[in-house]
Structures are given as C-alpha cells and as structure tokens.
C-alpha cells in the first residue's frame, strides 16, 4: 500500500482469520528451519468473524509462554495486530521483527529435522 517498503525476507501465508492459525503451523515452520514466525491479525473488536482473534489471543498467550518454557527464544515467534488500513504499522513491525530475528541468528535447534 502506498508503495511502503518492508523487508523482502518474509513470505506471506494467507489465512482467513488469526483464529485459523493452529499452533502446529508455527511449530512446523520452526521445525522446517524457518528462522522466525509472525502471526498478524485484526485488532480486537474488529474481527470479521466476531471473536476469532480473541480466541486466538488466548491460544497465542499460552503458546508464547510454553515456547518460552521449552527454551525457544521469545523473539522467534511474534504476534501482532495490524488491520488492512495500517500499512505503515505493518511495515514498521515487520522491520522490527526482522531486526530481532537477525539479532538471534539462524534457527539451528532443529537442524536434523525432516
């Protein structure tokens, strides 16, 4: 939007709602060697499906705590809200995520994984 630039090293996977994001998706990406995962959803209250993002938020809260417990760096997995009209915000947040993950370096924990 408005030709705003953001880092090119992310790949977008479209889902209907942040409520569709199964924790499997996130863990599977890490297992496959992706260096980080971002989940971006609509702001609370703006959900097209009324409450999908509120349900998702609780799920993410627990997932974040558990990843932390199992020793995955908290910055590997990021959750954020950004609506369709917030191109600036999205770009800024992705820049921040990229910076965080670059600081962490490559994800080598699951190197031997198939």
């Amino acid at each position, binding site marked *: 939007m408005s030709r705003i630039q953001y880092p090119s090293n992310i790949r977008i996977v479209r889902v209907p709602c942040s409520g569709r994001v199964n924790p499997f998706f996130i863990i599977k990406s890490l297992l496959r060697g992706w260096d980080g995962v971002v989940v971006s959803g609509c702001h609370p209250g703006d959900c097209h499906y009324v409450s999908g993002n509120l349900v998702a938020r609780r799920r993410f809260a627990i997932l974040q705590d558990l990843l932390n417990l199992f020793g995955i760096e908290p910055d590997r997995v990021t959750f954020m*809200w950004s609506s369709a009209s917030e191109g600036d915000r999205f770009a800024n947040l992705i820049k921040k995520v990229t910076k965080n993950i670059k600081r962490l370096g490559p994800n080598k924990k699951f190197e031997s994984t198939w």
Partner: protein
Amino acid sequence: MVIEDQNKDIEQLIRDLARKLLKEKEVDVILGYTKGTIPLTSLPIVIDKVEDVDKLIWNNLCYINLAKYLVPRIPTLMNEEGQKLKVGIVSKGCIGRALIHLSVEHQIDLENIKIIGIPCNGIINRKKIEDEIGEREIFEISVSGDNIIIKGEDLEQTLPFNEYLNDLCKTCQVKSPPSIENICVGECLENPVIEDDFSDMTEFDSKTPEEKWEYIKNLLDTCTRCYACREVCPMCYCNLCFVDQNQPVWFGKTTAYSDIFTFHLIRAMHMAGRCVGCGACSSVCPMGIDLNLINRSLEKIAKERFNFTSGIDPEALPPMMAFDMEDDQEFMMEED
C-alpha cells in the same frame, strides 16, 4: 498424626463409605485401589460386591488417577445392556478435581457418580526411590512415622517421607476433593481457596532460553513415545490424538528429539488450564521422565494469566473454552 495412622484412618473411611453405598444400592460399583502385585505400585480395582469391600486400600502409592476410567473412550464401566453404571469413586483431591473438570467439559455426568472424598496425604515419587536404591530389588515398602522404610535383599533403608513425595504433592493445596452437593460423601473441601506463589518455579524461570532448551532436552530425550503419560491422563480423552492423526501427518513419529519435543509441547498446550496436577503421568513413565516441571508451569500460566485453577468450580469455564475482550496482551508486538 503420623502417616501410617492417617493411612489406616483413610482406609477405614473408604471401606465404611463403600460398604454403605453398595448396601444402600446408591452405586453399582466402587472404583478404588487395592494392593499391587509388586512393591511401589497399587492396583486399580472395580468392586461390585459388599464382601469385596475389604480389598480396598489406601497407601502413599495410589498414583493412578481413577477419573480416567470414567472417560467415555474406556467402555468398561457399563452393564450388559450398555448403560452406564453408577460409580462410587475413591477420590483424593486431584481425582475430585479431574471429575469436576471433566464435567465442565461435558465428558461425564456427575449425577452418575458418587465422590468418596478422602484427605490424601501425598503420593510417594517412585522414581526418586528407585534412583536412591539403584540396582537392588525392593521387596517391601512401608511408612513409619515420618519415614519411608524400604526392605529388600540385604537392604533396609529409611528415607524421609517429605523429601520423597511427588513434587506436585508438595505444593498441592487441594488434598480432598472440592465439595459438591449430593455428589460427595466423606471428607471434602468446602470452597477451597488456592493461594500459590509458585516460588518453586523461580529458579527455572530465571534461566536463559539456551539453558532452558538444554534442560528440557535432557529431561525428555529418553522418551520412547509409548504414550503412557497420555493414556493415564484423565484429561486426554480425544478419540484421535493429534499424534495419531495421519491425514495430514503433522509431525514425525520417530524418536528424533524434534518429534519428541513437538509431542510434549503440543500436549502441554492442550493441557493448559486443564491439568489437575495429579502427577500420574510422571509416576507411570517407564523411562522415568518427570513431567512435573511442565505441569507446574501450566498451572502457573493458567493462574497468572487467567486467574483460573482447574477442577475447583463446577460452574467456571476453563480459559481455553472462553475469551475476554480485556485479556492481557503484553506479549503482542507494538511499534516502538
């Protein structure tokens, strides 16, 4: 009161109540514990005759969570016409919590159940004892005063009872099942209040991610994926567990650490706000993996994030069955 006297009292309580319930035909069967065939175990038993009541026992090795046998997937407690039997179930605190939580999740009907409440005095950690004894065979284990006495071939050892309890029992605040009207008999807790500062978790929480990774990896990597932890857990009642799903295959079934990691992480995810802290999973693991740390932090997450403790209030919805506009979202990324 010393532990062996407590055990005797509890045993008497169980037998008296079981006899009464069976005689008055309030229940069809009693689910309880009897003496195991080898030391360090107890054997779950289903009793339907008054004469057999004296088989019921209580000791500090009754580690199986009997609520598991009421979960629908296991069809043993039915009569010949396929109707559910009315069950009286010997309940320590965590069994009571499991029953209440299962009823919140509409898995069991509490109307069909009589909870025989007993004041549990802690479950001994079998793995710690085996570690202590090493490669020597144990013939007999008993409790005397504040000590556990272990007898075997050329072996007589006294261990302090409190140190050899399950770690979850050390912090347990629900020794007897929470009371529900008309369902509970025996000793139950009225309106239990849980105040826990999770001080036992501080040490682990202060570790760096790298240290935590190494610690958990070291803890889990002997897992053989026999799923004893899942099968013994009263909260694991899915018809098809996520690890068994093969359309599509989400993650591997090998014993590579990444697969073990995923199994335990996702299982923990499913247990959040639901684990009742009975410690059965750690007690039954054939490889001796102690899942207490994970269970304890699940309890902590549920308590600190959602102020919820599972299996206390039959009316309250667990956190993952509900949502709230005002939930904390401090973990969400914001612009600088």
